């Protein structure tokens, strides 16, 4: 289907380009070019680049080509006279060279071993989650960088891009809020490995029932969300020290989402259809003893959900289990306007500004160039030091007589 | 801060080139720039810490550096350079003002060169890196070359080329010495080199020290100019336009003497001590020779030019007395000479503008025709002669005092140099009498107009400074005292240690 479309549209594109080339009338050429641009816009759509497609239509086909047409009409230059040309060999030479170029390029593309497959992974994201009961506000440090400060209980920080070195071991430390990382004793410390493309949540949980010593659990999430539409992605972290391991069940359709999740571990990601779900937690192998429940909770697609199973202090110094549900909407899908826009205003702000400046300069330039005072009205007479035969006459305007 | 002052003329020049449109605008723009520079440079005096011997208002960053060497943009002022900076910023507005009428061709270019000149001269006086210094040193040549070569008198090309070649020949030797030093020390920054010399990180043999001293010394001696390397000076002065002469005598020559104080003394103290008698002898010969030759002149500008040789002989004598009154006197005398001789050239320029001749025989009794002008001229002539109470005396007296009490040079230099004071009266009064006194017996002189406001504005500041320095030299010495005291102590320590 897709291939078919590609072939059809591609053929239109090539054809329209060819027609543009051979049309004698410049207006036709322009119209064919617009068609060609439309085809390319279609290709952009196929290439997951809706934003570009949109821009292609509006700016290119819409604005620029209209400008072209306008100028053509303005100058009345639909056709130009084709007189003798001094270099008749130019045409065949150009065609031959172009073909050689094309052949060389195609050969290289088709049969070359250029590696198109190697995937570039984006920088990792990190965030911190505070799930230690009774503890005060916490500061999280990754290596020596403060990634979350003054984080309250049950709160999570936003995902932050981690642009430092990756693929190596880093230390996550947590301190009481406001402590000096250089001198103070960390409350908890964990060595983690961070890889490109990951989204890591550093979850601080109590290291035992009623114990306030924090312990760090690392949950790997995925916020890029390019897997399957209509689903949310769930990762669970078990901080229930009483039970050796737990299972998590979706009550709606009675499917076990996660099995055998031991204490102090994070599960792998599980996909959850978008919509309402009721989630229960059981000790592993015991369907009766429901530890905690999350009732009728709505899950959006393109979200990453982190469940932290914790024990919470009740009145009378008893503890009760609970699911801490933290949802994060995934990053925008590839090629969407949001995606492009975000990039534009983060990494590409400077080039963007420069291009804007360039446009401004171009605008001024255009005005200056076409300003009347700068364009002499009188036809210019060529002055030749060594005039070739027949060119010693003024070639424009009326010959002076 | 130092950067601000010395970059101002350049900024002014660029803005002038962009904004100014007519000759009149060039003139006023340049004048304003130079006056603003002067005003800003007054802030230097205000902010200067007299008690400190070190560099002040320093701006420093790496310019060109690499393996084993570093050239820095390193500017700052101390007790020695502050008055020379002030002299430059003071003289320039006057020089510019004096050329309003005299310069009528290629006005834009002329004023561009004036500002370029000021920039480069200020650069010479604030640069603390040998390489940077050298760059400015050479840059000063270019505008002066053109000032003489384009706006000069009949033989201007000859004079300009001679000026250029003479100075260039000397400075190439200096360049070699600078490169050698920079290579040995790994840095071109003078304070750093001095530090290395003090700590013994950088040591060179006695012979090397002497060669380096000579390499620097010849470059400076040509600029001063010391007898017998003075031959370019009369040519340059006589051919240069008035403002060119003013700058040449007022500031440019001081670069030579300044170089001796700034580089030769601290860098090669032992060699300075060794060469001091010889240089002092040349200086004394210069004093007497210059004065004597001045008396034999027929052209006013030439007379003043030769008198510069005599005056700068005093400066050199003071420097190589190697004690604080000699050196401080020398530095003040640089300023004095700049003001007085600059003034003399302005005075001669006034007559030249009216009569287009500088021959003394063409005048006589000018006092009757131009009383105001003659009064002004008298004060400047007296200042140049070293009348006590005016600026020239203070410098000469302290220099002679230093020379008389110097350990480095023999006693008989002092009476011989003092002889120069008599001879100064001889040639100066000769000029004053022939031109200003006597009968007004030449018809063409009878209707000469007296000073106009513009000329008065150019001359009155000189009179003021002549009096202020003459009566309150203590104020000026205070600025140098810490620095020169340090310098003298360092020299004697270094000589004692055999460096």
């Amino acid at each position, binding site marked *: 289907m897709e291939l078919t479309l590609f072939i059809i549209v591609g053929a239109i594109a090539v054809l329209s380009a060819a027609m543009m080339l051979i049309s004698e009338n410049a207006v036709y050429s322009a119209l064919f070019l617009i068609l060609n641009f439309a085809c390319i816009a279609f290709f952009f759509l196929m290439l997951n680049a809706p934003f570009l497609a949109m821009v292609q239509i509006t700016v290119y086909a819409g604005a620029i080509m209209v400008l072209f047409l306008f100028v053509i009409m303005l100058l009345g230059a639909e056709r130009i006279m084709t007189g003798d040309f*001094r*270099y008749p060999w*130019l045409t065949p*030479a150009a065609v031959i*060279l*172009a073909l050689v*170029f094309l052949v*060389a*390029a195609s*050969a*290289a593309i088709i*049969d070359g*071993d250029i590696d198109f497959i190697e995937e570039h992974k984006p920088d990792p994201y990190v965030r911190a989650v505070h799930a230690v009961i009774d503890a005060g506000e916490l500061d999280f440090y990754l290596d020596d960088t403060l990634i979350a400060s003054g984080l309250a209980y049950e709160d999570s920080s936003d995902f932050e891009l981690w642009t430092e070195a990756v693929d190596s071991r880093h230390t996550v430390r947590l301190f009481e809020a406001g402590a000096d990382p250089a001198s103070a004793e960390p409350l908890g410390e964990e060595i983690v490995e961070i890889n490109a493309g990951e989204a890591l949540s550093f979850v601080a949980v109590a290291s035992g029932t009623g114990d306030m010593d924090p312990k760090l659990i690392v949950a790997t999430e995925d916020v890029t969300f390019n897997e399957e539409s209509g689903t949310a992605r769930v990762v669970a972290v078990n901080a229930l020290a009483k039970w050796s391991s737990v299972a998590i069940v979706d009550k709606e359709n009675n499917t076990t989402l996660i099995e055998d999740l031991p204490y102090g571990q994070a599960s792998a990601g599980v996909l959850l259809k978008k919509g309402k779900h009721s989630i229960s937690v059981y000790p592993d192998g015991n369907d009766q003893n429901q530890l905690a429940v999350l009732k009728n909770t709505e899950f959006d697609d393109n979200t990453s959900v982190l469940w932290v199973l914790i024990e919470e202090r009740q009145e009378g110094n008893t503890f009760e289990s609970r699911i801490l549900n933290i949802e994060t909407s995934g990053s925008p899908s590839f090629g969407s306007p949001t995606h492009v826009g975000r990039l534009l205003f983060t990494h590409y702000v400077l080039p963007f500004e420069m291009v804007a400046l360039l446009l401004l300069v171009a605008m001024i330039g255009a005005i200056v160039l076409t300003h009347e005072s700068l364009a002499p009205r009188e036809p210019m007479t060529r002055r030749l030091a060594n005039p070739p035969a027949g060119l010693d006459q003024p070639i424009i305007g009326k010959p002076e007589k | 801060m130092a950067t601000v002052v010395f970059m101002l003329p350049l900024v002014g020049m660029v803005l002038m080139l962009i904004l100014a449109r007519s000759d009149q605008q060039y003139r006023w723009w340049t004048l304003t720039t130079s006056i603003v520079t002067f005003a800003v440079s007054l802030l230097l005096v205000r902010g200067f810490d007299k008690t400190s011997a070190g560099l002040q208002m320093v701006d420093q960053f790496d310019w060109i550096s690499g393996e084993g060497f570093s050239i820095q943009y390193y500017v700052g002022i101390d007790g020695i350079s502050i008055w020379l900076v002030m002299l430059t910023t003071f003289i320039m507005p006057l020089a510019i003002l004096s050329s309003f009428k005299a310069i009528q061709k290629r006005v834009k270019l002329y004023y561009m060169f004036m500002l370029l000149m000021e920039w480069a001269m200020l650069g010479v006086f604030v640069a603390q890196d040998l390489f940077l210094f050298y760059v400015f040193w050479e840059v000063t040549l270019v505008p002066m070359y053109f000032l003489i070569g384009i706006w000069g008198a009949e033989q201007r090309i000859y004079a300009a080329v001679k000026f250029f070649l003479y100075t260039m020949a000397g400075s190439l030797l200096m360049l070699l010495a600078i490169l050698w030093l920079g290579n040995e020390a790994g840095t071109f920054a003078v304070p750093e080199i001095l530090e290395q010399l003090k700590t013994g990180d950088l040591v060179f043999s006695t012979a090397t020290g002497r060669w380096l001293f000579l390499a620097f010394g010849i470059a400076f001696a040509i600029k001063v100019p010391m007898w*017998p390397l003075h*031959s370019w000076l*009369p040519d340059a002065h006589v051919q240069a336009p008035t403002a060119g002469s003013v700058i040449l005598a007022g500031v440019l020559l001081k670069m030579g003497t300044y170089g001796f104080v700034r580089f030769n003394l601290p860098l090669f103290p032992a060699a300075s001590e060794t060469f001091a008698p010889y240089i002092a002898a040349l200086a004394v010969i210069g004093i007497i*020779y210059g004065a004597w*030759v*001045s*008396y*034999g002149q027929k052209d006013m500008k030439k007379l003043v030019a*030769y008198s510069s040789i005599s005056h700068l002989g005093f400066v050199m004598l003071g420097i190589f007395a190697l004690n*604080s*009154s000699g050196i*401080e006197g020398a530095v003040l005398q640089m300023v004095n000479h700049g003001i007085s001789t600059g003034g003399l050239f302005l005075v001669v320029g006034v007559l030249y503008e009216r009569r287009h001749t500088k021959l003394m025989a063409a005048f006589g009794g000018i*006092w009757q025709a131009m009383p105001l002008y003659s009064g002004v001229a008298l004060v400047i002539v*007296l200042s140049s002669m070293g009348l*006590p*109470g005016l600026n020239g*005396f*203070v410098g000469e*007296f302290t220099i*002679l*005092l230093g020379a*008389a*009490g*110097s350990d480095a*040079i*023999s*006693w008989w230099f*002092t009476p011989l140099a*003092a*002889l120069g*004071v*008599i001879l100064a*009266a*001889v040639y100066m*009064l*000769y000029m004053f*009498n022939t031109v200003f*006194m*006597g*009968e007004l017996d030449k018809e063409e002189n009878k209707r000469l107009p007296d000073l106009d406001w513009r000329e008065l504005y150019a001359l009155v500041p000189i009179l003021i400074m002549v009096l202020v320095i003459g*009566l*309150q*030299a*203590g104020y000026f*010495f205070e600025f140098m*005292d810490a620095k020169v*005291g340090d310098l003298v102590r360092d020299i004697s320590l270094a000589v004692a240690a055999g460096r």
Partner: protein
Amino acid sequence: MENYFDLVPLVVLIPLVGMLTNLFFGKRFGEQGVAIVAVGASAAAFLIAVILWIAQVNTGYVPAVIDMPVLGDWINITSAGLRIPWEFRVDSLSVTMMLVVSGVGTLIHIYAVGYMHGDSRFPRFFVYMNMFLVFMLLLVTGNNFLMMFVGWEGVGLCSYLLIGFWFDKPGGVGWKNSDAARKAFIVNRVGDFGLILGVLLTFWTFRTLDYYKPGEMPAAAHHEEAAYEETLFAPDLPEDEHHETATGPIGVFNQASAWLEEGDHEVNFGVISLSLEATITLITLLFLLGATGKSAQIPLFVWLPDAMAGPTPVSAFIHAATMVTAGVYMMVRSNVLYHSSDLSSFVVAMIGATTAIVAGFIAVGQWDIKRVLAYSTVSQLGFMVAAVGVGAYAAAMFHLVTHACFKALLFLASGSVIHGMEHGHHHLHEHGHGDHGHDDDDFDPQDMRFMGGLKDKMPVTYWTYIFGTLALAGVFPFAGFWSKDEILLDSIKHGVNDGYLSGYLAFVLLLIAAVFTAFYMWRQVSMVFYGQPRHAAAEHASESSNLMTRPLIVLAILSLLIGLINIPSGFPILGWLLGKHEFTSFLGHSVTFAHAGSFNFLLATMAVILALGAIYAARALYNDKTLATLERDPLELDERTAEAFALANAKLYWDEFYFKYIIWPYRNVAYWLAEKLDWEIWHDFAHERLIRDPFNRATQFLAEPVDKGFIDRNFDRLGTLVRRVSDRMRVIQTGYVRTYALSVLFGALLVVILILLPVLRELLGL
């Protein structure tokens, strides 16, 4: 009373204000306004001097040092220990000088108002006069040698300006005036050369230039001067206070006394090491050179007669009464130094005495009324200097004071004569008295040969002139008698009592000089006032205005009475009536070695008789008969004296000597240096023949055969080759955009192929 000492800066500042006022606004004031300002300034300065004098007397003659307001230290180099403040000194010596300068100055200012009436540069004249007052008062009030030097050179400048005041006189006179001015300045500079060297040496010897530090007292004289015990005038201070002041910073003179008392002091500075005595001798000799310049002594006196080119009030004020005495003042100020050096004292005495007699001799042979007085001044200055040389510092100052009065009087009176003569000459022209045989071009109002018989025409002038002449000749009881007598007595005492040869020599020379004085003065009086007018101008001469005659009268009275301030001890009646040596005791509070003169009846009588004899001789020689036609001097006519007269008339060929052996050689060498050595040889020959031409030849060689002939030709061939090739290649540059575009494509293709080379190679199985 001490507070009044704070007024001393005003002594300088008031004339300064007067000068500036007249300088800037003089033209608008008109003559009267200018005169009021100038005379007022001078009078105010005198008033302040009087106040200071009274304050001195009332405070027990305590010297005071007062700072200049507004100004800071003049020179201050801490690291060299050099500090020259602007400080004024009020002590009896400076007050004396202030009184003389401003007092005589005021009278002369008044006189000048009349004398300069109608001059086109009237305001300028008074600017200079006030400026002179400024510098002269600075000279005498400064508390250190350098401040004195400011005044010293400053008065020289004023002298220059005033001598050359009539630089614009037509007919070559202007040039002569200008040259005279220049001569004065340069000759003075020669003296200043000595003075400044002396100052340098003083500094390095004593490490200060202050006479005395503030609060310091002049030390008492040495005790070996016991012979003059009864006449010593040490400050009224107990002995122990002396030692107290000696602990702080002390000035030059006390330091010198202290070291001299210690003995065996070495002076070390720079490379010099000398005994203190030798240093002081050197310093004093150098100072002496300065004094010979300013006070017109041999060998530098030549400028003073020429200085008469200036207006007469200037001659009276500057070149007779005040400026020329600066040298004497300076030596008296340095009496501590001079006293300790026998050699210097000897030289000083000899120079003074010789000058006195030489100038007296020359004066006899002069025709110009002012020149006679000028040489007389030189001669009298010789008396003062000789007095310093024989240790009679007080006598020197005394003579300075009296001389200021009567010499000012004589000059002013001569000015009055000249004025009268000019008036007569003017009158002659107006009324067309052409019947006289005299050729007017030769007329010179100052030439005594044109005068004669003015006694009746100008009675006031005549009588005052007589007073001045008698005072100068030293006739009792006129002022000159007292002071000259004291000098003569001190000289002979110096010889007899202390056994110095210089005392005898000076005495003999001075006595002869005194005879000369009386003789040439009466010669002058006879020529000017007696006999019959020898020129129509003299016939029509008339008395000057009151403005001019009144100062004359005041000065005449002063000439008569001023001597009474210092009656020597031992003089009958008067001494008892008016107090003995009042002036010396006043001076003694600041001049350490001032000692009062006694009175020797024999000597005084002899001197007076000699003077009267000389007067009689003069009158006899220049009687009415010889005066009738005075084409040639009677002395000239007499064979015995003709030669001597010619010598005197030619000023002993002193100027010619200087011209021949100093000035012309200097000038010729200057021309030779300037034109030959520096220009033709060094500038042209060395630079152009030795450096430029060989260089040019070398460049020619390199340029023509080497460069053009070989290198250039070969490169030309290369160039031709390139051109031929490029002629072919030029076709590529078609100027058509599309061909360029094609070549771009070609290039791009090459690049693409280059990049894809591995791929293509694999593809093609290579």
